[in-house]
């Protein structure tokens, strides 16, 4: 009898977990569709020339710009992977894309006021500045290691 009760509770908990997952995904869906439509728009209307004028292929410059853009933008990490993957196809360097997807999730300029008000201004500022700097190092180290190993 007790086992049966536990089983029912467990099933309900699994159902709730999946309901939450679908709900959370559903909330992000309009942005996801918006981003995909925006990428389609960019792919057709923005020339590779323009992209390569921003990302010149110079390691530090590209990584810095990638980090800057990722820090300002925010949202579901899936969005950053899609944008990053498409940028890569357009010829943007892996250094810039890695820095971009890393800062997207580790640096949150948009969340900064909330983080500062709850966890403290000093902590939030230090954490975001360090995350920004570390993202540049992580991006460079990742791509160089990948080049050595593959």
């Amino acid at each position, binding site marked *: 009898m007790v086992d049966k009760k536990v089983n029912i509770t467990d099933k309900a908990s699994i159902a709730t977990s999946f309901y939450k997952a679908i709900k*959370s995904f559903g*909330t992000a869906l309009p942005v996801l569709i918006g981003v995909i*439509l925006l990428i*389609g728009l960019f792919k057709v209307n923005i020339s590779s020339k323009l992209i390569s004028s921003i990302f010149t292929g110079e390691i530090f410059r590209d990584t810095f710009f990638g980090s800057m853009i990722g820090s300002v933008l925010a949202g579901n990490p899936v969005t950053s992977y899609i944008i990053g993957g498409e940028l890569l196809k357009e010829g943007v360097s892996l250094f810039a894309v890695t820095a971009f997807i890393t800062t997207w999730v580790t640096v949150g300029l948009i969340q900064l006021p909330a983080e500062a008000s709850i*966890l403290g201004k000093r902590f939030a500022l230090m954490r975001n500045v360090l995350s920004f700097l570390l993202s540049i190092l*992580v991006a460079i180290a990742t791509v160089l290691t990948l080049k050595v190993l593959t």
Partner: protein
Amino acid sequence: MKFKKEKNTKKSSKNLYYNFSFLIVVVILYIVLFFLKPDKLINSLYASWDIFVSIIPVLILVIFLMGISNYLLKPKKVLKYLGKKSGFKGWFLAALFGILSHGSIYIWYPLLKDLKEHGMRTGLVAVFLYNRAIKIPLLPIMIFYFGIYFVTILCIYMIVASIPQGKIIEIIEDKYIGRRGENV
């Protein structure tokens, strides 16, 4: 309790409003493009459709893994294992819980504040937040775009980088507290 529920509902409807506003702005851009360059509009829609179709299987897998992660990890469990004087275990668990944690980051701020007030090391809070960047349910889509080698190397470096970040924050905080005699 009722107040908290109302606050959450307000926040989620605000998020939904923001998300739809973004989509509406993109749709407006498409409408503008329709009047300026109708041929490019069709090409843009085709390009978007191709991207969407290619990621559908991965998105389904992501939803499944998110459900599993929701079921296995609850914020209360994290509270149980991340106390003060946790030593190496604390750093390891902070990184692990950061990786396994799910949902919006806002959910975790109050819990982390609570843990901090109960003696959780500041460095561990930073480690937890940095490792939130690694999302197990989202790894398939990351691998789809960047390959398994890249994802593995990036994840390892991110976990490693979170430790000096936590240490540096702790050193600075300790120095500041020592100078000001303040209690953070």
